[in-house]
């Protein structure tokens, strides 16, 4: 009964989404105010329906309802409750429902903030969001209904993929999707402006907190995914340039360009049509990411489905949304000329180059990700594109970008006058270079020419970000949230670059075949294979090693890597053991029984690797701070404002 209720709720949500799209888009076009006013109830109703569907699926999982195919496929009576809940987005159908649910949350947040927007504009924004929601609901109901029954009911479930039974994965997809879907809001704002054919002077200011919030969620989502793959996939890599990772990284790059371009449109009224284009691109890439991952075009651990009907539907949807938006853009954008000019050394130019470099970086990633597909479609020999392509061609635009970031923060709008900050910039650059050389040559042996370059840039960005806040503090000036957010995000970027340079240059790694009592040396660390014993969990058994780690001859810790065998699917999983001190990770993974009493083991020492994710989270924190700036909430203060509506998406 409950699954049917969920199914019915989804159908009602589809109808409400259609109403929301129709009233929102057609109402303002025909100047029918009462039509436009009907959008808000449709949004609320749709939210309740989608929430009901989500609740029904959660209930089916919680109550072991194996008569529902999706539940039987993705859970098991031995699966703990937290993973039964996380199993909702453990496969294709449920992750689509999660997508729809998050879109409903964002839409509701926009509807709450809509009191501060011109009513026609708000209706159009909500209408565009309704259109997207309609497409996804239709897709779910037609090709991927999670509420389908299994006849007869399965006696027990097939279990959740053991790779996904992990706390990191319980939150990675919701975070990532919140980011993806958040760009739908920026897209809807762009769509509304294009439908109206004019851009309100406050348009960019209205859009900024949404885009920044979406960007912050996406940053968190990508970082969590990378962290998860680092400790859960077992072998200690944090980024593989896997197409699925690229699929989330491309919207991030374009989204980063978007939030910078929005700043120019907001402050100076420039780059209007370019900003619109970026908003379209960011969401299109989010959709493409969904398409790449979910259609089974790419086969990797992330792709659950390989159903061509779904692929064709998503492709059609993609063409409709992206093609429609771009046609609208081609029609309307020429009317949005920016008048003002600026000097070459002004902040506008720095942000222009920031945008160009980010888009080039996104394009190189796009090229590398799509090349195998295109080659395949054209019947060319099967290609594979990996890190040897991505690493250099990505660094090429990114290195100058980092250099520009350190300087550009201090350029003034319109007229660039760096003179007052020149000395501070110069001295921080010297300190950064000295620090980088000390780390690269003093602490470690130098690895490559890029090491000191990367370290210098990272340290310089951190120091350079601090110049302005320190200056304001010294002169007893206030520090608005927006500026604080920018500072924090740039510090996060610097920390990330420092960590990346260190990890890439100074990681030590060794595979060894050891018997009990033997040990191996890796830098200052000694690993001794003490013992091996059985281990049993709620739905798996396996073996567990005892590895004593010493640093410079002093005992540091006992690590316990595991090799698990999950009963239901019979799959074997490596649980690496990681000890982190001062951001340096000591990593041990248990391989396999090699015979003759020996086991294969993988040892790694990765200095500062934790700061990769810490840096990313600092960036996201900066985004959250900037999005919560009060100036975005006082755009049109005609009515009494509810506190904390804008920039606080319901997550």
């Amino acid at each position, binding site marked *: 009964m409950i699954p049917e209720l969920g199914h019915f709720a989804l159908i009602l949500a589809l109808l409400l989404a259609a109403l929301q799209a129709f009233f929102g888009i057609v109402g303002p076009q025909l100047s029918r105010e009462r039509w436009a006013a009907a959008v808000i109830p449709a949004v609320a109703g749709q939210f309740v329906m989608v929430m009901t569907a989500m609740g029904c699926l959660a209930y089916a999982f919680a109550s072991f309802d194996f008569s529902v195919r999706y539940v039987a496929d993705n859970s098991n009576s031995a699966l703990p409750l937290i993973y039964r809940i996380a199993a909702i987005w453990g496969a294709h159908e449920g992750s689509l429902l999660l997508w729809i649910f998050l879109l409903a949350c964002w839409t509701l947040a926009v509807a709450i903030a809509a009191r501060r927007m011109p009513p026609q504009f708000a209706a159009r924004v909500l209408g565009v969001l309704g259109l997207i929601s309609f497409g996804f609901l239709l897709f779910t109901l037609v090709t991927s209904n999670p509420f389908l029954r299994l006849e007869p009911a399965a006696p027990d479930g097939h279990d959740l993929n053991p790779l996904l039974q992990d706390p990191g994965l319980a939150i990675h997809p919701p975070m990532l999707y919140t980011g993806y879907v958040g760009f739908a809001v920026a897209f809807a704002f762009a769509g509304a402006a294009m439908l109206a054919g004019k851009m309100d002077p406050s348009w960019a200011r209205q859009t900024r907190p949404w885009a920044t919030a979406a960007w912050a969620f996406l940053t968190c989502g990508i970082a969590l995914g990378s962290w998860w793959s680092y400790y859960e996939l077992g072998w200690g890599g944090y980024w593989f340039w896997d197409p699925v990772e690229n699929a989330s990284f491309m919207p991030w790059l374009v989204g980063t360009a978007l939030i910078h371009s929005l700043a120019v449109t907001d402050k100076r009224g420039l780059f209007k049509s370019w900003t619109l284009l970026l908003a379209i691109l960011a969401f299109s890439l989010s959709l493409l990411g969904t398409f790449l991952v979910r259609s089974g075009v790419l086969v990797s651990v992330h792709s659950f489905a390989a159903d061509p009907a779904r692929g064709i539907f998503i492709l059609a949807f993609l063409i409709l949304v992206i093609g429609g938006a771009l046609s609208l853009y081609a029609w309307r954008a020429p009317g949005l000329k920016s008048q003002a000019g600026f000097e070459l050394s002004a902040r506008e130019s720095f942000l222009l180059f920031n945008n*160009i470099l980010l888009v080039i970086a996104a394009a190189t990633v796009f090229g590398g990700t799509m090349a*195998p597909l295109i080659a395949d479609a054209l019947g060319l020999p099967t290609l594979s*594109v990996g890190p040897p392509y991505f690493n250099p061609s990505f660094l090429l635009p990114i290195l100058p970008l980092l250099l520009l970031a350190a300087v550009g923060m201090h350029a003034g709008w319109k007229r660039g006058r760096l003179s007052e900050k020149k000395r501070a910039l110069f001295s921080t650059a010297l300190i950064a270079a000295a620090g980088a050389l000390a780390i690269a040559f003093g602490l470690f042996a130098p690895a490559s020419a890029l090491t000191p370059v990367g370290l210098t840039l990272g340290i310089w960005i951190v120091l350079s970000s601090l110049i302005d806040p320190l200056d304001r503090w010294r002169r007893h000036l206030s520090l608005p949230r927006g500026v604080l957010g920018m500072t924090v995000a740039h510090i996060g970027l610097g920390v990330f670059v420092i960590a990346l340079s260190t990890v890439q240059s100074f990681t030590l790694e060794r595979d060894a075949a050891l018997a009990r009592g033997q040990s191996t040396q890796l830098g200052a660390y000694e690993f001794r294979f003490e013992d091996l014993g059985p281990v049993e969990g709620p739905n798996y058994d396996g073996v567990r090693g005892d590895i004593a780690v010493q640093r410079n001859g002093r005992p540091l810790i006992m690590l316990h890597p595991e090799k698990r065998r999950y009963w239901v699917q019979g799959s074997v999983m490596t649980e690496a053991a990681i000890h982190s001190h001062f951001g340096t990770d000591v990593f041990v993974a248990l391989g*396999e029984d090699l015979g003759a009493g*020996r086991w294969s083991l993988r040892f790694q020492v990765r200095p500062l690797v934790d700061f990769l994710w810490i840096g990313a989270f600092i960036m996201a924190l900066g985004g959250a701070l900037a999005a919560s700036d009060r100036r975005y909430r006082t755009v049109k203060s005609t009515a009494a404002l509810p506190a904390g509506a804008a920039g606080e998406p319901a997550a």
Partner: protein
Amino acid sequence: MTPRRRRLVLVIGILVGVSIAGALALSAFRQNVMFFFDPSQVAAGAAPAGERFRLGGMVQKGSVQRTPGSLEVRFTVTDFKHDVPVKYKGVLPDLFREGQGVIAHGHIDGSGTFVAEEVLAKHDEKYMPPKIQQSLKPGAT
């Protein structure tokens, strides 16, 4: 500078930057793209000795041989028409099993053995184009 000249400088700068980046990315692409061959293509001489490529196929049942107590392992990759012997030294992925699909990353040495630097099992975290999936299908189930 007049606004027009400024714009000209900007546009030229952007064009130059984009074309340099494009040319470099393209050359990186041409140098670093790896081809994928199945054992039949290898048997037909598609892969020159010493050149790196990806070999994909099925691990032949009963072909995995270990040197006891060491990391060295030998196995045969097959597409049920031709076989390629593979040599690898290191930790094999969790999903590596006889009768399952693998992709190995490496080159053919003088004796016709594929020396793998990296071995990925099917459903590993890395990329596997659909075509490889197809070529792996016959014995996958």
